[in-house]
């Protein structure tokens, strides 16, 4: 941090210089008057500087430097501003001398070298003898310069740059000149700093706007005293409001916020106002219906930024983010969980029915346990099949394969033939048919074609029509097994196939206990095409 010389304003300097007029000689009086005139002209100049710096234009900067240089009898001036590692020379010009372009360029280069050679901190005023002693200022001497002054630009003790003046006359830049330039430098520093802050604010504003747009944020301020809302551009856009001046009204039929809220959420407005009177920052979540009919979920906070003497909120800053997508995802999850719960409960009821029916059936306790296990496993495999397809359906081929697979004795594939066009079954149809086929396969492995190595099972299906309604006929035929005995007792399996499939699929099923092998025909409404099913 550079040290700082005492600051003496030119006005003070002029006051301090007020002489004892009664005892002054004519020459002294004349000199005093001249001094006063000069001080007056300098004050006028500083006043002009102050006015023009506010206008912020570089050309007026140059004009100001010209005027200052002329005032203090300088022939060159330059203005360095800190930017990066080295101070950047912004303005560099000859104040008065008529020079050719080449001469001016050469002078500029020399001055840059000198500016960079001089230590930047603190005010520096050098006369001819000082320049002669310092090798760093040798280039100045080559330009015929005999005096040099540099004043740092400081803003709250932060070094922003420097202004320098050089003169061809031997005894320039005395104390009053230094003070004058110092004041000018302070004004310039304040202007530069202000410009920097404005730029910073603008950048921060752009950053904020960017974040607001990217984050789908809407914000506005509620003023409870003026009963007004001041909306940001993004807020107006997101809420789909028609507010050309960005100002809305609290309460009444023109309350744009209340009107945009979903009717079921409008009661919340009064809640928010009540909460703001008690709490500085509070959450807010609600639905809005935009004028274009779009429903959106909003979530955010209200923050009290001013309270009245009674403690009630006067101004509240509000910010909300569009959470419509999250809400939709939550809703989907909720529906999924609901659906899952329903399926689990239904599956448990199915398991309960399987167990109850099997316990009522024939065979030893061990047989029944085995049967229960096999039926539950079959159900589980059907579930796997459906889960693989996101519970959208299952291919008929797969359903048949899964049902038969555990009972195939040889792996050469000759024992079972499956044939039919590819069809996608709805989950419910897949489950029912899977269970029915499991019963058929179990029966075949116990008493039929799959109980011996030479037996064969053929499963095939073909579309047909009955009374103009498309049906699917599915056939199960066993060959090569033991001679089939017609069974007097109809067990769970046959009940499931003959009654259950008819019940659930809205079709029909028939079991024929032919001596050469069981023959089963199942007819149910044609499953939708694969595209429709998916």
């Amino acid at each position: 941090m550079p040290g700082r010389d005492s600051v003496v304003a030119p006005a003070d300097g002029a006051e301090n210089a007020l002489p004892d007029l009664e005892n002054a000689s004519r020459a002294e009086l004349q000199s005093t008057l001249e001094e006063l005139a000069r001080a007056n002209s300098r004050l006028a100049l500083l006043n002009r500087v102050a006015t023009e710096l506010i206008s912020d234009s570089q050309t007026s900067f140059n004009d100001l430097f010209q005027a200052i240089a002329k005032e203090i009898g300088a022939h060159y001036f330059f203005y360095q501003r800190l930017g990066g590692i080295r101070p950047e020379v912004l303005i560099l010009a000859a104040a008065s001398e008529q020079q050719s372009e080449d001469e001016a360029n050469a002078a500029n280069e020399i001055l840059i070298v000198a500016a960079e050679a001089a230590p930047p901190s603190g005010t520096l005023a050098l006369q001819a003898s000082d320049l002669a002693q310092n090798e760093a200022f040798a280039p100045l001497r080559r330009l015929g310069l005999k005096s040099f002054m540099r004043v740092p630009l400081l803003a709250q003790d932060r070094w922003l740059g420097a202004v320098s003046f050089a003169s061809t006359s031997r005894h320039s830049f005395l104390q009053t000149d230094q003070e004058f330039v110092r004041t000018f430098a302070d004004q310039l520093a304040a202007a530069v700093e202000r410009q920097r802050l404005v730029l910073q604010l603008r950048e921060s504003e752009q950053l904020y706007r960017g974040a607001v747009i990217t984050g789908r944020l809407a914000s506005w301020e509620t003023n409870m005293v003026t009963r007004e809302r001041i909306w940001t551009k993004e807020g107006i856009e997101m809420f789909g409001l028609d507010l050309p001046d960005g100002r809305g009204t609290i309460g009444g039929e023109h309350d744009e916020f209340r009107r945009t809220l979903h009717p079921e959420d409008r009661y919340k407005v009064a809640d928010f106002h009540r909460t703001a009177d008690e709490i500085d920052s509070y959450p807010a979540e609600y639905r809005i219906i935009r004028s274009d009919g779009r429903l959106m979920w909003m979530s955010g906070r209200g923050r009290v930024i001013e309270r009245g003497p009674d403690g009630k909120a006067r101004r509240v800053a509000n910010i909300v983010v569009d959470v419509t997508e999250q809400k939709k995802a939550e809703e989907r999850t909720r529906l999924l969980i609901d659906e899952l719960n329903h399926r689990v409960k239904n599956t448990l009821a199915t398991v309960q029915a399987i167990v109850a029916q099997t316990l009522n059936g024939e065979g030893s306790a061990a047989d029944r346990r085995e049967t229960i296990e096999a039926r539950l496993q079959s159900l589980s495999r059907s579930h796997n099949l459906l889960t693989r397809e996101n519970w959208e359906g299952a291919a008929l081929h797969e359903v048949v394969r899964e049902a038969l697979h555990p009972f195939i004795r040889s792996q050469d594939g000759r024992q079972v033939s499956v044939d039919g066009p590819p069809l996608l079954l709805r989950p419910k149809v897949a489950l029912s048919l899977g269970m029915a086929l499991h019963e058929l396969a179990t029966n075949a492995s116990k008493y039929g074609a799959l109980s011996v190595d030479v037996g064969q099972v053929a499963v095939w299906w073909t579309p047909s029509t009955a009374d103009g309604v498309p049906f699917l006929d599915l056939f199960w035929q066993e060959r090569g097994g033991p001679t089939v005995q017609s069974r007097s007792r109809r067990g769970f399996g046959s009940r499931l196939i003959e009654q259950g499939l008819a019940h659930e699929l809205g079709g029909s099923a028939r079991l024929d206990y032919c001596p050469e092998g069981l023959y089963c025909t199942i007819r149910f409404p044609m499953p939708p095409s694969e595209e429709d099913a998916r």
Partner: protein
Amino acid sequence: MSSAPGKRLLIVEDEFLIAIMLEDMLTELDFDVAGTASNPARALELIASTEFDAAILDVNLDGCDSFAVAAALSERRIPFIFTTGYGASRVLPEFAHHPVVQKPYRLEELSDALRQLW
């Protein structure tokens, strides 16, 4: 409240296994099964053509709800109970006073719900 024996019931249930279990349970509770429907259309047919004293309605019939059937029963002043895997919240408010039995249910739960009807 009168005794159950002899009362005839309509079953509306899309899952066959659950339907036959229900039939067995009702038989055990000395009810008669007047008919079994697996979808709303079949249920409405049976309501129009069959005599029965009460019904057991599954709320979800393969993706559809059974409230049209419930409305037809209410119109005829036939008492009924709901069965569901979803929870009672799925029942429309206008039918909220009807007993709801959660799947999977026990014989006693079914019996208690049915006895509330008379």
